[in-house]
């Protein structure tokens, strides 16, 4: 099918964008979900505002403590850029798993977060690392945790994600990212699990983060619950305790693709794999 008619604007600067936005406008970033919806006439819009020409949305700044990525940073850049790979390898790994090469050419980090698919890879990494987003609207500017943006209507009508800021990972952070996808060419993620962990010199866990997508209305992280897991030996029992906590916070649906019970089992299965990956990397970093 073909899209219904719409007007089209392509501002060249952020100021021009903010000056032109009116209620009902739909922002066009990578378009890999939006255009499919428009083609199927599941969505329509009076006007598409194409932000691909705005240079300010394409920054890639790796600082000593944080990484600032413009909203238009493409999945391909996240996956391939040596700077991103060095600073947030778990993000690069996840980005490389989004769709296929053609989707990664166009798809953007900001678009993925704005689209907020509950199973998508990149919002999960945002939640994992405690990323924040810079948002601008014609009359305001705010910074908000990515986790908060992933709920319906969290982004205002005339609000634009400008950039995503993530804490830089250190060489001591072991990490893992795994997913089970639907089969075939679409291959969209069913459930993803990501984790980072750090070891103390005695081999016990000194820091742990973990996040899950595809098992609740929005991605969720271990958060403060990780506290009781710190300081322990990362053995199989500990893996199980992490998985228990993650599964306990799940609220999955049963749909055409999989049952809720299956999604729960995937969390457990992937958590074990991801922790093993993270542990191995953390140990390699120490040796």
């Amino acid at each position, binding site marked *: 099918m*073909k*899209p219904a008619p719409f007007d*089209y604007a392509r501002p060249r600067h952020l100021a021009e964008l903010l000056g032109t936005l009116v209620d009902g406008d739909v922002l066009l970033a990578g378009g890999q979900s939006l255009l499919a919806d428009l*083609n199927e*006439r599941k969505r329509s819009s009076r006007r598409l505002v194409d932000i691909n020409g705005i240079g300010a949305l394409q920054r890639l700044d790796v600082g000593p403590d944080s990484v600032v990525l413009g909203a238009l940073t493409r999945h391909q850049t996240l996956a391939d850029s040596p700077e991103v790979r060095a600073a947030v390898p778990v993000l690069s790994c996840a980005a490389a798993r989004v769709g296929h*090469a053609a989707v990664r050419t*166009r798809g953007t980090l900001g678009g993925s977060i704005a689209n907020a698919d509950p199973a998508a890879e990149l919002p999960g990494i945002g939640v994992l690392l405690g990323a924040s987003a810079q948002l601008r609207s014609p009359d305001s500017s705010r910074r908000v945790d990515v986790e908060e943006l992933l709920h319906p209507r969290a982004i205002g009508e005339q609000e634009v994600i400008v950039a995503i800021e993530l804490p830089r990972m250190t060489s001591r952070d072991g990490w893992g990212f795994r997913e*089970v996808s639907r089969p075939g060419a679409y291959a969209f993620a069913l459930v993803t699990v990501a984790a980072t962990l750090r070891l103390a010199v005695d081999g016990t866990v000194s820091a742990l983060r973990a996040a899950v997508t595809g098992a609740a209305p929005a991605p969720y992280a271990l958060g403060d619950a990780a506290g009781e897991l710190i300081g322990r030996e990362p053995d199989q029992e500990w893996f199980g305790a992490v998985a228990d906590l993650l599964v306990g916070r799940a609220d999955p649906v049963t749909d055409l693709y999989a049952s809720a019970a299956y999604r729960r089992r995937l969390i457990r299965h992937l958590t074990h794999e991801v922790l093993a990956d993270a542990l191995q990397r953390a140990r390699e970093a120490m040796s």
Partner: protein
Amino acid sequence: MTGVEINVNGRQYGLEVEPRTLLSDALRDGCGLTGTHVGCEHGVCGACTVLIEGRPVRSCLMLAVQADGQDVTTVEGLAGPDGLNPLQEAFRAEHGLQCGFCTPGILVTLTAHLADHPDATEAELRHAVSGNLCRCTGYQNVIAAAVRAARSASARSASAQSDETEPTATGPGETSTAPTGPTATGPVGIEPATTGPLGTAITRREDHRLLSGTATFVDDIALPGALHAHFVRSPHAHASIVTIDTSTTRGIQGVVGVFTGADLAAWTVPLRVAPPIDGLVPLETESLPTAKVRFVGDPVAVVVADSRYTAEDAAALVRVEYEVLQPALDLAASLEGRAPLVDETVDSNVVFREHFSAGDAATAFAGAHRVVRTRFSHQRMTHAPMETRGCAAVWDAGRAELTMYTGTQVPHPYRTQLAARLRLAEHQVRVIVQDVGGSFGQKLIVHREELAVAALARHLDRPVRWREDRIENLTAALSAREDSAEVETAVTADGRILAVRARLTSDFGAYALFPANYMLRVVAMMLPNAYRLADYEYDMTVVLSNKIPASPMRAPMAICTWVTEGTIDAIARDLGLDPVEVRERNMLRESELPYVTAVGETYEDITPYRTYRTALDAYGYAEFRRRQHADRKAGIYRGLGIACLVEPTTYGSAFYRSAGIPGSGHESAWVRIDPSGAVVASVGIAPAGQGHETTIAQAVAAGLGVRPEDVAVRLGDTEVAPYGMGTRGARSGTAGGGAALLAAQRLKDKVLAIAREQVGTSGAPGSGAADGSGLDVRDGEIVRAKDGGHVGTGVALADIARTAYLDPLSLPPGMEPGLVAHLAYDPPPMTYSNAAHLCEVVVDPVTGQVRIERYLVAEDAGTMINPKVVEGQIHGAVMLGTGGVLYEGVSYDAEGNNLTPTFRDYVLPSAQEAPRIEVLHCGTPSSRTPGGMKGMSEGGVMGSIAAVTAAINDAIAPFGLVMEDLPITAPRLSDLLAGRTAALPTE
């Protein structure tokens, strides 16, 4: 409208587009570059992939305005001026394409990948193309071609670095003449002729245009001023049509009109399917529904406008008022008479019943050691050709003639039917089929939409075209295979089958576009498979429902192999025997042929036991069992599935008569030598990717004594092709190739008759043998037998042709001038081939994922015209059956809403899921067909449904579970295994 400047393949295009115009449409319609194909418009299939600034992009997920000022590369830009590039050459050499519709997207995707990763491994290449769907090849040769290209790319980059010359061993332009593919371990039986035109794996002549983006699919045909049709479809599974208000579309610029079933009823004749078959209820289908809709997607009106975009806009405004009715979705409810009536003109949803009995099953059951009970249920599937349905109709008012461009498999029967339904004389209709992007049985009839488009072209006196979109294709084209079987088998203590009772049911969907018993009767017919069975009873029931109408789909009988082989495995389980042993005890041996089955079919020239043993021996069965045992102890669940099959092919007229189906099984061909000596041939078949232009050329070459490359082949145009029954039922090789071979031989007889005069009077060497007994044609030259070989006569075919046309007085007395032979060939009632499939899987009990570790086919398709084409057919068929076992399915909710309208939900396997397939050939010629050919393109589906399912059941046997319903998706299998504990293997 907005002006954009796009640089495509190095050339600047200035286009006026709407903001909403997709880049794919701008490239095709604006730039006229139709090599970029549109397969889904939701970004899943990858057919429309192009490069933008060197990076791959789905051109259906990008607006044309977004490409303003950018550099775009399409498939047309890949080849240099000298022809195909090394990647394209690799695809040609490896037979990496069949219909070629998906190929441009694959080539573009791989171009980008290989540019970044010239050393890519097979696994990486498999992953790289897993966002590109292909329905024909099973990806086997796509991957082989990609690997070949990577090898040559990395060799080039290495040689560039070391400043060496270009490698030549695997360089571009090499054509494969090896008789078997890279994974085949060679012929097991007779050696295929590698020197003659038959049995040689020459590269396909179709491939150059398909690889270079210059092929002509229906939507690529330029028809200036053509209008676009778009159908308004029912959102309800079952509803009365109260009113259709089309006034809302008046005044929309570009809309020519909106037409409904009432219009079509005035212009056309409805479809009546009422062959005189016992137990079959006659049914009629309106050209478009007028009173009620019967499934979600049923067309109720058609908008005609000057563009597809406008037509869709107007369709969204047409207001149809429905009175929603309860749908009939549950087969059991229909059988019990509890379901709403799908068709009020008949008194039940049950539209076919048959009871059949051969021998004395009752006595056999009474004396049986045990009765084994099995159940099999296949889900609804759909064909999903990469090119959806479509057509373009041109009415010539001056001549009162209609030209219909479409992708039908059966041009002549299609024309007969289309003319009758338009109330035109047959000679007023011409059907032209050019390149077709797959069909698999979907493009076998005059679809209601196509009839409407033809009628509208005539009514409006304007060309009208229609291209179905993917959502329509998945929800409203045709579906297949929602078949079930419950089987009781009487057996002896040592596993001998005494008798079988089967209850077969099928959900036929909303309309009878075929006789209702059409598919299920071949399931029942082939259920005895390759086993001795005299006492056989079956009951067959077919019901209508509020789902997509059913049709044959590549291997309409496909579940029969699963039913029989699954039953054999169940016998082995019940009796504690090895499944190999049970097959040994029951399988027919060649010494028992000809064998008349319980349903009256005659098996001859088949070798089921040979292909079975060949497969098992090549596989290493005993070693597998040891590996399986060891792995189970380690918690690895490995299984092997065995499927033997006998494939019915090339249905002859005698079969149709005995089945009560009107129609013929004949095929026709003509072969002509023009005055210059040029050879051209035509047959009534119409390929959708099977490479018939190549294989027919080989058959003609074999019959006439010329080189295949010197034979032009014209297919698909009813003004050119003789009246044949088209491509279906694995008949094109044997019926089509057979007709071509026989026609060519007949023409050669005339050539030699002329040659006898010519050689005898020309004073050429050896002219003494004027009786001609030693003359023949080789590579286009008249030769004479000498000393067990041949010597040239100095007379070429062109000399004979010149005489035949331009010097008729030199012809033998009474001979007609010219060189043409026309021949119709009616094959035997049935030409059986056979195969054995072995599939090894590992099941992950946690994720439920099934990984196919090895897949081996031993096939006996008789004499092969082109082994590479045969293997390609096997690969594709195995993938099609495997897709049904593991991934695909048309799903409906309780209201009859279609839950699988896109490629996101209707999951075709990708290269990531595709097994590597090994093929062994056992070429036992048929004694009844020209050249000994047999059909073979459907057996791969039959075998894979059975083998993959059996392998899974073998793998999960320790969990005490047997899968009886398909598809076995990973989440479903995992859910069923959860909470079960695997029994540890005994020592």
